């Protein structure tokens, strides 16, 4: 019960928050979707990916290009963004998913770079380094979510949907197989688990979640540029997925809120705020290597 309540509380922010605060809130909500998706792959399947930012970009670009280039209803860009990210993530990622440990991480860096290079160089499709401008406000059946407060509510609803859907995924037998595969691939196979299929599915889900976040991102900034979706973003999202507790969706949400809004509450530190941010990360990893949530809740 506490989780729906927290989302409901978050939805009350427009009552007292400034527009600026609502924009930070929207950004955190959007990013949480991508982080939760990455958490399915990284936390539960044990496959560390540094391509999530790029796949998020695929979702954002698919949305931006569809709504500026065609006259489809904006909401239809959502399934398109999800499918495009899943397609790219699965087709380019699944040959690598068989690789173990660091080799898979390195291949995802490659995937991330490929996506960025295509976005910036395939000008005929993506408008290259000019980015895509003129994205309209998100509207459903003529009702526009143009104001920061309205858009914020949409972002919170999406974040809640992403969170509760992911909870169902990890609680299902598929979630069980993911953790089993992450623990021991060989004995998973000899216990009857389709190891490769399970890992590819985790990759597809992570990509789909990134695509959904990208959809919102395009309508949030109403401008997309390749440099928004670089390795930096992937590193930030991976940090968020690990910081809160690698097998805890709650932890991932908390981490996204804490780290995503850091630029705001670290403001008193002025020019030193990045140093403080780094110190927070470093201390957390030293004191709670399994995530902040794991440090506070004792295992059974």
């Amino acid at each position, binding site marked *: 019960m506490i989780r729906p309540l927290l989302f409901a509380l978050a939805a009350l922010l427009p009552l007292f928050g400034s527009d600026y605060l609502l924009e930070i809130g929207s950004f955190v909500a959007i990013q949480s979707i991508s982080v939760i998706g990455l958490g399915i792959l990284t936390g539960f399947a044990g496959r560390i990916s540094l391509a999530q930012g790029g796949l998020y970009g695929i979702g954002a670009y698919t949305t931006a290009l569809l709504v500026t280039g065609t006259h489809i209803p904006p909401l239809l860009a959502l399934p398109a963004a999800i499918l495009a990210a899943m397609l790219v993530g699965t087709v380019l990622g699944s040959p690598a998913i068989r690789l173990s440990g660091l080799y898979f991480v390195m291949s995802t860096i490659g995937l991330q770079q490929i996506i960025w290079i295509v976005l910036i160089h395939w000008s005929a499709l993506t408008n290259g380094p000019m980015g895509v401008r003129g994205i309209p406000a998100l509207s459903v059946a003529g009702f526009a979510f143009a104001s920061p407060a309205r858009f914020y509510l949409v972002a919170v609803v999406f974040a809640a949907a992403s969170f509760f859907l992911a909870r169902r995924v990890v609680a299902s*037998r598929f979630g069980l197989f993911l953790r089993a595969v992450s623990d021991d691939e060989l004995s998973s196979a000899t216990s009857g688990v389709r190891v490769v299929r399970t890992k590819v599915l985790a990759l597809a889900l992570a990509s789909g979640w990134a695509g959904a976040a990208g959809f919102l991102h395009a309508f949030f900034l109403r401008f997309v540029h390749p440099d928004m979706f670089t390795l930096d973003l992937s590193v930030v999202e991976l940090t968020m997925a690990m910081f809160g507790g690698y097998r805890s969706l709650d932890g991932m949400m908390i981490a996204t809120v804490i780290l995503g809004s850091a630029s705001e509450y670290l403001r008193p530190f002025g020019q030193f705020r990045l140093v403080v941010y780094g110190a927070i990360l470093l201390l957390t990893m030293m004191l709670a290597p399994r995530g902040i949530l794991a440090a506070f809740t004792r295992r059974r």
Partner: protein
Amino acid sequence: MLTVSDIRLSFRGVKALDGVSLTIEPGEALGIIGPNGSGKSTLFNVVSGIYKPDAGSVVFQGRTITGVDPRAIVAAGLARTYQNKRLFGSLTVLENLLVPAMRTQRGSWLSDMFGLDAGRNAGEAKAREALAFVGLEDLADVEARSLAYGQQNRLELARALACDPVLLMLDEPAAGLSPSERSDMRGLIERIRGRGIAIALVEHDMRVVMQLCSRLVVLDHGTVIAAGTPEEVTDNAAVVEAYFGTPIDD
């Protein structure tokens, strides 16, 4: 039910298996013994599909399973345990058994996700049954990695059992156990046999092997050097030599 014919497998020129053949009849308990490094575990890995042999064939219930995906081999009814315990360490004891138990349930994970699937209950019932069989009910919610060694052995056994095998391959199930745990383990294996499940047992403790198995196969340097009843095998000169070396003549 299992026919292994002339299996050969080398690792970088080292012959791990050099023409191994054996058969297991339905409901039989076959002991596979031999000195360390004689190829027993390698043979298990070939039969369970982890290694693809260079030559030879494995036929299980009339179907050739040589080099087939391990998952398909379990699905056909051939389960195994590992000598160096390979449990799902971060999963609870019950979850370790749910993995094979859910795998065989009908219904997809998508329906499972939205709570539409009756297979969940059947899977859990099966997992709990395997748990009760090995007597670990009280530890159902404990992380597998925190189990004591003897409990891990029993969980390995339960996990293989939850795969619904007709042939169970046990790789040193009694290794490292105390005498009382050892006799418990022997009792469990006897009860599994009582259910009509055939057993291939690799074990160093000769007493356990002798009590459980009606027939033995002895491996040395990747070949079968003797086969027969426990009495025939222990009287065999080649076996004595493999274990103790050549007697010095006066």
